[in-house]
């Protein structure tokens, strides 16, 4: 199915629970509706998105809106879909780990790097950084710490240039 068919199909099942970013062929879902739509994407035999390729977290740059982009692929039907879930800082996105195990580590990474909370995740803790790290480094307002465990972080980068 192409993008228009997929949209039409989801529309018949759940009307008005998502919006479309037309020129980018992306659908935008709010965290409140994401649990329902994700179950639909996985379990509906017409769509059959069995392969979650990637979850990419992003920062909108206004210091409060963050989001996750889900790139789906169906090995059986050979079609793609990108879904974005935008969230305000502090509002959790429902976890899709029970549907796609790929999401387990990717959601942990999004939490680790961007501070997005995932509701219902079995083990939401830092994955790439150490457990005692403060802050979320991929946020645009992240400030490099002056000290880490009492060790000063070098600020003079002139030797780089």
């Amino acid at each position, binding site marked *: 199915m192409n993008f228009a068919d997929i949209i039409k199909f989801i529309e018949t099942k759940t009307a008005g629970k998502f919006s479309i970013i037309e020129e980018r062929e992306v659908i935008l879902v709010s965290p409140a509706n994401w649990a329902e739509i994700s179950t639909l994407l996985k379990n509906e035999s017409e769509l059959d998105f069995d392969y979650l390729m*990637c979850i990419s977290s992003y920062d909108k740059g206004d210091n409060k809106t963050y989001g996750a982009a889900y790139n789906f692929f169906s090995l059986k039907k050979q079609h793609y879909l990108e879904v974005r879930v935008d969230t305000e800082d502090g509002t959790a996105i429902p976890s899709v780990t029970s549907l796609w195990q790929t999401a387990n580590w990717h959601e942990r990474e999004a939490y680790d790097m961007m501070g997005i909370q995932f509701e219902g995740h079995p083990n939401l803790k830092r994955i*790439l950084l150490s457990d005692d790290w403060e802050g979320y480094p991929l946020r645009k307002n992240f400030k490099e710490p002056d000290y880490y465990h009492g060790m000063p972080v070098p600020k003079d980068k002139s030797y780089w240039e």
Partner: protein
Amino acid sequence: MAEVLIQKDKQLLDKSVLETGEMILNMGPQHPSTHGVLRLKIHTDGEVVSKIEPVLGYLHRCFEKHSENLPYEQIVPFTDRCDYLASMHMDHAFSMTVEKLLDLELPERVEYIRVLVSELQRIASHLLAVGTFGLDVGAITPFTWTLRDRERILDLFEQLCGARLLYNYIWPGGVSHDLPPNFIEHTIDFVDYFEPNIDELNDVLTTNKIFIERSADVGILPAEVGINFGVSGPSLRGSGVNWDLRKNEPYSVYEKFDFNVPLGKGEMGTAGDCWDRYYVRVQEMKESVKIIRQACEGLPDGDVHGSLPKKIRPEAGEVYGRYESARGDVGFYIISNGKNVPLRVKMRSPAFCNLSVLSEISEGWMISDVIAILGSLDIVLGEIDR
């Protein structure tokens, strides 16, 4: 005297000195069998594994954060260092994604050169993978053989761009240098020399009884579990899933080449076991040789620098690009805001997803089998931790 001793033994037993129950065994981060700085917390009952918690991040070098502060062309050396065993693939994947964002058409010669070096790189990476897998299960000689052949590919790359491991060769819009004189002859010489060595490797390792005992029927990955965990590349094809981007969604000029996609059939045990994952890689090397021969034959003339953009400044938007690397499905998700520096670069690392299935398929196996399973998944920590 003897009776006293027996009495003491009984007392010790009563005090439950011989405790039973779960034990946590730490493997790594400094351990030769984890192929890098990976730490595994292995929950064991006796010698039987019940659960594995991989602890990542020892090689985290902030690739994604660096990318947000660098112009596109300067990110390529960083992608080199992500998967340091298949740097050409990472460069190619990133460059292709940026070209998708720029909507750039490339001369055919550039595409042919890219395919040529990518397939050489695939052989080099698989050689190391099968060699170290043999080493993990106790076969030392094949490792020296595979490294000997890999060395010749690195020599070819040294002729090509001066570097042996981190090339910075494939750039968005083209390649850094044209092929050096006689490169095609040297490549043909190499594949002529290399092709019989695959059969030799099969004789000494693939069909070796001890090797089969260690790897066949061990760590079986069912296809649906692999798909659910996002496993890709040779590890997924070992389970019999016919999915190869080079064949199913040909990028670059792959649709012009004739090659097969080897799949795991469970010849020595069950489909999806360690032996199948290993053998898929061996067969893929043969297929890569086929592609290299065709690419050398059909290499068109032309200029390789003509399509390099003066300045990379894509329009605002985002793109997700896929690429079939030696380890599986690499993805780059790039968000641009119209500047020469990307707003966000996310890399989908194949080894990251492949490693996440380790706990699932190791359950119920011995600790020594975990080494074999980990070796057969062919992970690279530089790419997992980024």
